[in-house]
């Protein structure tokens, strides 16, 4: 299983633990990653709201740079995924825009490179059986609320690997790792990430509701698959707790972190220490304390 | 070709078929001749090489015996069309598949001044259709003999040069074709060799009404060939036999391929013989077909 890997800006900064855990997990599962040569911004929010064409040119150029490998492009971030997939859709269905982009980029892109979110790859390429087979330390019934966020499955005509309103890929992975995937209503509600800096009061309300329902469902932690979801729910948990009047103390973990833990990753692979809401305690409660070294397979 | 001989022998010995249709060598190598083998001991004659140019599927309709037939990858599409048109059920013959890395073009050989083939069949001497072949190995074969040929990068595009040629204005094209068709002697070889021309009575013979004038005068050949283009639209599999058989070198495929190219463009990538389940374009419609030309 070989993939072109488009990390996007978060993976090299705020979501370093997503990157490390993903790379570790990919290694265990036999995924070979080639980082897209000289990749740059995917064109998410700032670009596509100021200039739609620029918002398409950026992901298209990235895909052009990925093209020589002929491999599917794997992304981890919901926004990157959305932009790159949108660029594909435009290239396939909007001949006029495709021409305009070819003018700008000096090369025609026909939408031929499939773009895949890692959840899609995990469940559909690697397979739930494989995910399960590699587990060294089962999650021992850890109660996980999978939170997909508002962008990962939307719009359904772009993001097409899971049910738009009731996605289940992450839940399948949690179950495969030995955890309990919780049925809860806020899987795809907005967490307010766009307002994380500008209007933290709104974020408090939105994130608070998510937190409350996760708690109500009995979650010990929330699993996410997008750097923005993670940083927002983690960083703004204080505001959320204030809004709801409850101390949530809800660890927000990347799904790859849970996988890395179950696969015996070392401290640096899993990167639990980076979270604001203490995540280590939850993991340790489930496994008992384990050293920070990688477990040899 | 030992395997071909053995398989053919087995089929005849076990009475699975009455006749094996294939190729046998001729006095003019590398060219071959069609062979109808009915006795196991004659199977030794069978060969397959770059001179096995004929499209043998022409012989299948109305054969009256159960045959096994050697069919090249490109020609198999014709069998699909015939099946779609209820002329030849798939179970009425056994398909012997082969790997073919290209067939020699007799005309090129002649014009190149060779009286026989050099050691290796080079692209220069290969039939045009082989240069963009995407079906080197016969699909859907009941028996596959010999080794599969590895697919080769096409050397030309299927429709190369057509857009440029047909960019001429109507008058030039008209003169070109009247000129070319004035050579036609109405020997009907193009029709008789075509695996898809199986009408009981070709309408060029019907005179009540007179669909097509019979004489070669008055540009009537042009009309005959226009009708043939119409017949081939959405059906031609580009086996190239018509052009090979034409005694006066009329480039018929240029027209057939042009229409095939247009059909592929209009009708969602349709290519004759590619998919048994897909209705031929003129027997089908889509509510969203282009309507640009309609007032």
């Amino acid at each position: 299983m070989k993939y072109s890997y488009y990390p996007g800006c978060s993976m090299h900064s705020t979501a370093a633990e997503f990157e490390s855990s993903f790379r570790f997990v990919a290694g265990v599962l036999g995924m070979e990653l080639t980082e897209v040569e000289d990749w740059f911004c995917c064109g998410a929010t700032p670009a596509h709201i100021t200039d739609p064409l620029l918002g398409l040119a950026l992901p298209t150029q990235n895909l052009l740079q990925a093209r020589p490998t002929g491999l599917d492009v794997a992304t981890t971030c919901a926004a990157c995924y959305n932009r790159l997939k949108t660029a594909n859709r435009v290239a396939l269905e909007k001949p006029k825009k495709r021409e305009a982009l070819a003018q700008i980029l000096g090369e025609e892109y026909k939408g031929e490179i499939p773009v895949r979110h890692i959840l899609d790859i995990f469940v559909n390429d690697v397979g739930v059986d494989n995910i399960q087979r590699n587990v060294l330390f089962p999650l021992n019934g850890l109660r996980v609320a999978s939170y997909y966020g508002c962008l990962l499955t939307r719009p359904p005509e772009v993001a097409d690997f899971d049910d738009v309103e009731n996605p289940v890929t992450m839940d399948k992975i949690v179950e495969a790792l030995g955890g309990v995937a919780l049925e809860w209503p806020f899987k795809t509600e907005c967490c307010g990430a766009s307002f994380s800096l500008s209007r933290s009061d709104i974020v408090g309300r939105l994130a608070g509701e998510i937190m409350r329902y996760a708690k109500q469902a009995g979650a010990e932690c929330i699993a996410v698959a997008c750097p923005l979801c993670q940083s927002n729910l983690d960083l703004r948990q204080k505001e959320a707790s204030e809004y709801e009047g409850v101390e949530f103390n809800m660890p927000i973990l990347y799904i790859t972190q849970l996988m890395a833990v179950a696969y015996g990753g070392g401290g640096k692979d899993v990167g639990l220490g980076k979270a604001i809401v203490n995540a280590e305690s939850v993991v340790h409660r489930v496994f008992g304390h384990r050293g920070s070294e990688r477990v040899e397979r | 070709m030992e395997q071909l001989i053995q398989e053919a022998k087995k089929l005849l010995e076990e009475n699975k078929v009455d006749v094996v249709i294939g190729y046998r060598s001729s006095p003019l190598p590398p060219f071959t001749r069609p062979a109808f083998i009915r006795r196991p001991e004659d199977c030794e004659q069978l060969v397959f090489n770059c001179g096995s140019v004929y499209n043998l599927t022409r012989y299948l309709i109305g054969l009256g015996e159960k045959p096994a037939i050697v069919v090249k990858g490109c020609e198999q599409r014709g069998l699909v069309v015939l099946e779609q048109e209820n002329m030849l059920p798939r179970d009425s013959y056994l398909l012997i598949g082969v790997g073919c890395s290209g067939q020699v073009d007799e005309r090129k050989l002649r014009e190149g001044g060779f009286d026989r083939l050099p050691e290796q069949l080079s692209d220069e001497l290969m039939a045009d259709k082989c240069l963009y072949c995407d079906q080197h190995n016969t699909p859907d074969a009941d028996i596959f003999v010999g080794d599969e040929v590895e697919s080769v990068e096409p050397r030309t595009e299927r429709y190369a040069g057509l857009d440029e040629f047909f960019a001429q204005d109507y008058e030039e094209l008209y003169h070109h074709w009247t000129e070319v068709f004035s050579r036609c002697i109405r020997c009907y070889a193009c029709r008789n060799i075509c695996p898809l021309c199986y009408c009981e009575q070709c309408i060029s013979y019907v005179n009540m009404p007179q669909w097509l004038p019979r004489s070669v005068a008055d540009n009537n050949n042009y009309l005959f060939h226009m009708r043939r283009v119409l017949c081939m639209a959405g059906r031609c599999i580009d086996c190239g036999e018509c052009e090979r058989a034409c005694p006066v070198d009329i480039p018929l495929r240029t027209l057939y391929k042009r229409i095939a190219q247009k059909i592929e463009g209009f009708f969602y990538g349709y290519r004759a013989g590619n998919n048994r389940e897909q209705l031929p374009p003129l027997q089908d419609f889509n509510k969203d077909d282009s309507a640009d030309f309609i007032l």
Partner: protein
Amino acid sequence: MADAETTAKTKKKADRTGFEPHIIGFLCNWCTYAGADLAGTSRIGYPTNIKAVRVPCSGRVDAMYVINALKNGADGVLVSGCHPGDCHYNQGNYYARRRFMILREIFSAMGINPERLQMSWCSAAEGAKWAQIVAQVTEKIRELGPFEGI
């Protein structure tokens, strides 16, 4: 629609001395033929160049009819049927559309201006549209000049 009428007539008179194209029209019985009847009952004028052959459906029109019309001295041919979705036989016009799309391509490949074959949708209620179509087609063929091929 009075406009179409007058233009058609004035054009015609102005061009009196020039070339008058012969046009044959294959009209489906249910829509276009009835539409042409309506143009008549509504007295909406159009050029005399077109002569209609009534057929049950545009899907009935064999490509050879068109070719033979040209062969026999027509300068242009019009095939007209029901609008998509209105075909009395549900789908005849869709088949016709494909058939004549291809025939026009054959024409252009063989050096006949495809504009000599025109196709239109005209319903039984579109008398005025019929007059307009005839005016338009006549004008088009007039511009192309006499057909001297085949």
